[in-house]
């Protein structure tokens, strides 16, 4: 069928875009056009698959390189498979949508830097890696794509090549490198135990064992540490508050909005829920780590004055909410987690892009130096307000509904203390969100900022679109929309969860 055979385009189009950008770097405007077009085609492709999935309701499997015929001869799957199911499509839509808006934004924003083509090349490589992580059905292939995306992101964090940027990039590269080694080690152990690298096969082999060997627990630990580092769950979060603020604003938006979810959260959900069948020990560890992440992230965010650093700590806290939903493990909890994942992608990319817009206009990220920007920058301040309200969980903004679903799921699963903790932390969230709006946008305008102007149109449009997603994101819960987007993704995970 034709639609299976175009699955590799998710990886191939950004890759081709990256190399063409490097080749045609001297032609004016080409890097910008290629960056925007490649990420836009990724979005069109994911919409195409969403529509097709609605019609057929099947999981698409592609045997890369036509190794499928060997399956009968060998009795098991040979070669790499690419799998597109409801969860994959949900993630692909988010990743490519945010990437497209970020690419549009960076056309204007990145003029501050030299060598814009390098930015677009690395950006598209990162996108290719993330899309690869999402579509692959093979463990080792997953590792390779995680590395493609990670190495591109190390370089992007250090893109400014200032003191801070280089330091953050080095820290991130070392920690990310160690995380990758742990993931690879876990994959090797799994391969030696099951004799296969295909996720579906692995699941079958694992479910046939009556007794889980001790080796499996070692693998759990390695994967939790490895993917936990990529997802920046406390205690593996040390790199994030340095790396995210140091990157250029569009990259902060990509890292916080999408990368930690594709490489970290998605991989954890995919490996632990669909391959391992979500063992109870793991769900307890996830709940504990999620609770700690929520608390540490929110409380440390409260005392930050650097706008991007505050948002970075807030990401740690919000990923805690997502992991809480997965940890609960009931279909409602998983739906809350996925919904919050979607909302967090929207509002956190929006807020990072807004912080970039403020920096673009005023040249500072320190909120003590700002004030009264609302009058001079109506679009930026309006969209920040929408994103901030969604982050704080004020009804009727999108973030409220997803937090509500997670908390209701926690209550239903009799995790009363966790539900109370989640409510308490969302109050702390409101506090630090108010700090941003109060100090940056309200109050008296400073004398030195009297002549600042609103950012260019190409930066405004993504802000407006993302702000609309924050305001109307709650509509994802309307049954008609939910059946298209959320429910298929939840079904993939809940079927395997066995809880």
């Amino acid at each position, binding site marked *: 069928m034709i639609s299976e055979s175009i699955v590799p385009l998710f990886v191939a189009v950004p890759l081709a875009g990256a190399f063409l950008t490097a080749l045609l770097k001297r032609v004016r405007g080409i890097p910008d056009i290629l960056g925007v077009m490649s990420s836009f085609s990724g979005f069109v492709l994911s919409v195409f698959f969403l529509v097709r999935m609605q019609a057929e309701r099947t999981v698409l499997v592609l045997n890369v390189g036509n190794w499928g015929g060997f399956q009968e001869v060998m009795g098991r799957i040979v070669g790499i498979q690419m799998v597109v199911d409801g969860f994959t499509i949900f993630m692909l839509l988010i990743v490519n949508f945010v990437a497209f808006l970020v690419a549009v934004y960076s056309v204007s924003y990145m003029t501050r830097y030299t060598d814009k083509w390098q930015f677009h090349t690395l950006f598209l490589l990162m996108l290719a890696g993330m899309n690869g992580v999402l579509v692959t059905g093979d463990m*080792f292939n997953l590792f*390779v794509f995680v*590395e493609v995306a990670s*190495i591109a992101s*190390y*370089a992007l964090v*250090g893109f400014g*090549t*200032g*003191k*801070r940027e*280089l*330091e*953050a*990039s*080095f*820290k991130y*590269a*070392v920690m990310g*490198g*160690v995380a*990758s*080694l742990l993931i*690879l*080690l876990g994959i*090797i152990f799994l*391969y*030696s135990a099951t004799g296969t*690298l295909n996720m579906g096969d692995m699941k079958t082999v694992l479910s046939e064992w009556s007794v889980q060997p001790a080796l499996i627990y070692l693998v759990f630990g390695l994967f939790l540490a490895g993917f936990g580092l990529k997802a920046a769950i406390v205690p593996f979060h040390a790199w994030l*508050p*340095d790396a995210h603020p*140091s990157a250029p604003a569009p990259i902060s938006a990509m890292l916080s909005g999408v990368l930690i979810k594709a490489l970290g959260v998605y991989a954890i959900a995919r490996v632990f829920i669909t391959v391992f069948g979500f063992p109870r020990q793991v769900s307890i560890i996830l709940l504990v780590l999620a609770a700690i992440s929520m608390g540490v992230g929110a409380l440390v965010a409260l005392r*930050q004055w*650097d706008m991007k*650093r505050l948002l970075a700590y807030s990401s740690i806290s919000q990923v805690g909410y997502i992991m809480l939903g997965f940890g609960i493990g009931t279909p409602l909890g998983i739906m809350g987690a996925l919904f919050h994942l979607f909302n967090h992608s929207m509002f956190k990319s929006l807020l990072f892009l807004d912080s970039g817009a403020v920096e673009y206009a005023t040249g500072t990220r320190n909120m003590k130096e700002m004030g009264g920007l609302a009058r001079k920058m109506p679009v930026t301040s309006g969209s920040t307000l929408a994103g901030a309200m969604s982050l704080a969980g004020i009804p009727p903004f999108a973030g409220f509904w997803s937090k509500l679903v997670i908390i209701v799921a926690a209550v239903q699963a009799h995790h009363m203390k966790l539900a109370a903790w989640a409510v308490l932390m969302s109050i702390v969230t409101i506090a630090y969100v108010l700090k941003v709006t109060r100090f940056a946008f309200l109050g008296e305008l400073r004398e030195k900022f009297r002549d600042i102007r609103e950012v260019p149109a190409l930066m405004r449009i993504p802000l407006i679109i993302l702000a609309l997603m924050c305001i109307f994101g709650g509509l994802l819960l309307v049954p008609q929309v939910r059946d298209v987007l959320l429910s298929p993704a939840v079904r993939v995970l809940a079927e395997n969860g066995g809880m």
Partner: protein
Amino acid sequence: MNAHMPYILCLILFCIGIYAVLSKRNIIKIILGVVIAEYAVNLFLILVAYKAGGRAAIFSTTEHIAPQSMVDPLPHALVLTSIVIGLATTAFMIALAIRLYGKYGTFDITRMRELRG
């Protein structure tokens, strides 16, 4: 010789690498730590494929070799990929180290303290 010996040596190598990453102050030594740990993982990947008295996984028309007596060829293919990825990471980190030296005039990680909080 104990049959577990290679695995234990491999584990020791991995621990040396992680120890260097965690405790060394010189950037170059930290990078070397990552490289050592990475080699330990690659070595382990090859050890998984090893079979006592195994042969190369090549079928031949002149001589019959049972597939059971062959070593597992898949990890050999994987380790190549892993080495190439390791090369990219190492090259990137060394490039960063050079730029860091240019900015700070030192390789000492404890003197690079622009970021805190």
